[in-house]
């Protein structure tokens, strides 16, 4: 919940929507309780119930964060809630159950009965969290334990630069010092993250950390449900914006003690009233009742009105509806009224604060501003992401979730391949094969998933290390491979039945198995830059092949256009499809042309003979223009 009163709505205009690549390569603090709570809440309303949904969600989401999104998550576990929060939680429980608070102190037995459900839920919740912690430690993720609120430790890590962002929906992460909060995170869809930055909130609203703490004190929070009566979001915002960050909490202390920062003479109302009343009378100069301008009706009849721009011969202009006098004294009076109204509001607000007992609560302030949220006194340890303990994971998940070992290994593969590629990228020596079996073979192709491009990487089985055992183990391996496929199909069907909500399906894509000439290959989706860093030569070769393919198709198109240009291609951009030429369908009639030419020439010859010697020169000219064969034929005819 965090800060009360629709606090997130206040921040909504400052949300930034970031793409899938935003968190890649960054460290992120994750509030583990939030995951457990949100998933359990969703799953309780659904039947049939999934088996240990918190474990399942944590497993798949961690794989997605780590392998698909390239995030380095740091998981933070809640510690003991503060006594204030326990009280607030109890009050919330009572409110929700409809019981009267007055009944609480009357019967001790009754109070013990009502306390039991809270404790029971807490115990069950704690067990869920511990199971997730065990899972995460086997996955090789760093897990930190907070003294109190997990958000507080997440925020501290963000503030101190250990992580780049916090993943939590609790709005008081900013009060604990967070700089970047990822509120909405979905790993299996195209939708962008909803991110908030304290820098945007500062520049937009003018609120910094201590001012946000003041807001929480006034409105109410997890630690004090009610806050100060009469304070909602708008009032608190308006009040807090009056002060700088450095002085806001000190001022609250002063006001709580009855020392108001405005109107120092407040304690002597009589003295104040007298000067203000004496001030008022000279300001209010007489105004004309007809036009509303300074002066009087009688004077305006005599001398005219300067504001109405009339002289004594005419009447001044009648006052329109909603008239506001613009004379300097009225402007001053209005400003003074505005200021007095503002001061009255401030006094009223301060009175409300002063009326609250034990305000501001020093304990709450200490909670929010503390930079010592870690259980261990040494400080934040060096964060490291180690290799997952696959065997321990298989044992744990087989026992708790009733999953097949092959299914678990299959789901783990994207994570293991990501770790493998990182190792190859960081070290120059050749590492051990992936899962002790597979080596990098090639990049199959580019693949687009959720709008993000990946390389589809082909892994081949390392045959050298298994020379002696290969004949005997091969049938078993192939059987196992086919059984994996079968198991995959079964589990997919089961998952579809159990979990209908798309948000719950955080599963990464299953690696495919490719059979080629009797060899067994695995296909996984990997980050393009990571593959480039791990295997630069193979990546360069793949990109060169891609370029050649494009060039080849481009040259093929250019050949087509060359053929078309012979027929004078039409102007403008080429439409889709290849345009054919009309001459490909209909043949030319050159034979007929020659025949008609011949007839023509014969006719002309006849005319030339008729006209005498002068025409013979024309005939010679005509002969020259004709082709040789025709000329020869004509001579033969003659």
């Amino acid at each position, binding site marked *: 919940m965090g800060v009360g009163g629709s606090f997130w709505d206040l921040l909504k205009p400052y949300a930034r929507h970031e793409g899938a690549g935003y968190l890649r390569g960054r460290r992120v603090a994750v509030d583990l309780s939030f995951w457990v709570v949100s998933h359990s809440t969703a799953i309780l309303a659904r039947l049939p119930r999934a088996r240990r949904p918190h474990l399942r969600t944590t497993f798949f989401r961690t794989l997605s964060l780590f392998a698909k999104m390239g995030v380095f998550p740091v998981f933070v576990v809640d510690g003991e809630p503060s006594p204030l929060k326990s009280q607030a939680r109890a009050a919330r429980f009572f409110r929700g159950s409809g019981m009267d608070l007055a009944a609480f102190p009357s019967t001790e037995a009754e109070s013990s009965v009502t306390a039991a459900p809270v404790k029971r839920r807490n115990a069950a919740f704690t067990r869920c969290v511990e199971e997730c912690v065990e899972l995460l430690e086997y996955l090789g993720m760093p897990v930190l334990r907070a003294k109190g609120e997990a958000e507080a430790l997440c925020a501290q890590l963000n503030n101190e630069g250990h992580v780049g962002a916090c993943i939590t929906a609790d709005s008081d992460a900013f009060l604990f010092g967070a700089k970047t909060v990822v509120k909405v995170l979905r790993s299996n869809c195209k939708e962008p993250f909803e991110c908030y930055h304290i820098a945007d909130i500062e520049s937009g609203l003018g609120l910094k950390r201590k001012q946000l703490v003041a807001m929480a004190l006034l409105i109410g929070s997890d630690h004090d449900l009610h806050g100060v009566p009469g304070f909602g979001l708008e009032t608190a915002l308006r009040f807090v914006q009056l002060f700088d960050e450095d002085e806001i909490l000190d001022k609250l202390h002063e006001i709580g003690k009855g020392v108001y920062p405005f109107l120092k003479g407040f304690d002597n109302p009589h003295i104040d009233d007298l000067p203000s009343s004496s001030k008022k009378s000279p300001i209010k100069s007489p105004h004309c009742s007809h036009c509303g301008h300074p002066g009087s009706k009688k004077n305006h009849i005599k001398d005219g009105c300067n504001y109405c721009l009339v002289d004594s011969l005419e009447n001044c202009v009648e006052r329109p509806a909603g008239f506001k006098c613009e004379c300097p004294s009225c402007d001053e009076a209005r400003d003074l009224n505005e200021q007095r109204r503002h001061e009255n509001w401030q006094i009223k607000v301060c009175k409300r604060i002063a009326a609250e007992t034990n305000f501001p609560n020093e304990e709450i302030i200490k909670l929010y501003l503390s930079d010592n949220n870690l259980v261990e006194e040494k400080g934040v340890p060096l964060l490291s992401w180690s290799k997952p303990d696959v065997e321990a994971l298989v044992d744990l998940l087989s026992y708790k979730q009733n999953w097949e070992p092959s299914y678990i290994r299959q789901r783990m593969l994207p994570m293991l391949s990501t770790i493998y590629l990182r190792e190859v990228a960081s070290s120059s020596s050749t590492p051990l094969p992936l899962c002790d079996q597979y080596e990098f073979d090639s990049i199959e192709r580019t693949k687009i998933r959720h709008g993000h491009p990946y390389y589809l990487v082909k892994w081949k089985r390392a045959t050298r290390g298994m020379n002696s055992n290969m004949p005997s183990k091969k049938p078993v391996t192939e059987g196992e491979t086919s059984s994996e496929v079968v198991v995959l199909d079964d589990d997919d069907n089961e998952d579809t039945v159990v979990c209908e909500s798309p948000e719950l399906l955080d599963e990464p894509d299953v690696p495919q198995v490719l059979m080629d000439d009797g060899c067994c290959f695995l296909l996984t989706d990997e980050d393009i830059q990571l593959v480039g860093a791990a295997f630069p030569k193979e990546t360069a070769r793949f990109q060169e092949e891609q370029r050649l393919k494009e060039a080849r198709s481009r040259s093929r198109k250019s050949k087509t256009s060359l053929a078309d240009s012979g*027929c*004078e291609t039409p102007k403008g951009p080429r439409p889709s*499809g290849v345009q054919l030429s*009309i*001459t490909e*369908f*209909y043949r*030319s*009639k050159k034979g*007929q042309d020659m025949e008609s030419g011949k007839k023509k020439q014969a006719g002309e010859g006849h005319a030339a003979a008729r006209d005498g010697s002068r025409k013979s020169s024309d005939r010679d000219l005509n002969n020259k223009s004709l082709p040789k064969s025709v000329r020869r034929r004509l001579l033969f005819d003659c």
Partner: protein
Amino acid sequence: MLELRLVQGSLLKKVLEAIRELVTDANFDCSGTGFSLQAMDSSHVALVALLLRAEGFEHYRCDRNLSMGMNLNNMAKMLRCAGNEDIITIKADDGSDTVTFMFESPKQDKIADFEMKLMDIDSEHLGIPDSEYQAIVRMPSAEFMRICKDLSSIGDTVVISVTKEGVKFSTSGEIGSANIVCRQNQTIDKPEEATIIEMQEPVSLTFALRYMNSFTKASSLSEQVTISLSSELPVVVEYKIAEMGYIRFYLAPKIDDDEEMKP
């Protein structure tokens, strides 16, 4: 000597407006049977064939076969000087390098005399065999003009598909796609508004819309247009010219890139 007298001179004006956009220069062939023209566009994608039979002229004299090369833009400028009701006479002497257009007003009270230089155009003459077409569509020419105009605002190619349901004109472009279907429609009192489809076999071909739009400039010559289609053959868009002839446009189809890549 050549002397042709056409009482309905506006027909010739309309013919020129119809082909001027497509063809720049052309040879008009005059023989005993009639006045004809065959020309390709500069890209050799489209072909236009015109025939005005001798019987359609009030007076037709052609002593000897004659071929007159003309720039069609200039010829259109000449014919634009004739009124829509004028009688047009075309004269040319044997071996002359000019042609004369004479325009007479209906009442013979005004006679205009225009002389235009002829050109020497070396053009290719294509033999067009008579073909059996898989599908023949006859429809109002104004309707066809409207369809081509509407589709060209969406895409630059049109797919004409003829099935027993009717004839479909389809296009797609950056902003979306469009489909227009015309069904057979024979039960109208006015025969010029009928849509008749004769189909031996379903056929679907792709054409460039800008040529189709040029063809539809001939809509003013006839109220009906005939579209003949066969797979792997150019489409024929034909407009009759009163009782004296026709103007036919042949357009080569487009094929997919994949098909072209194969050979």
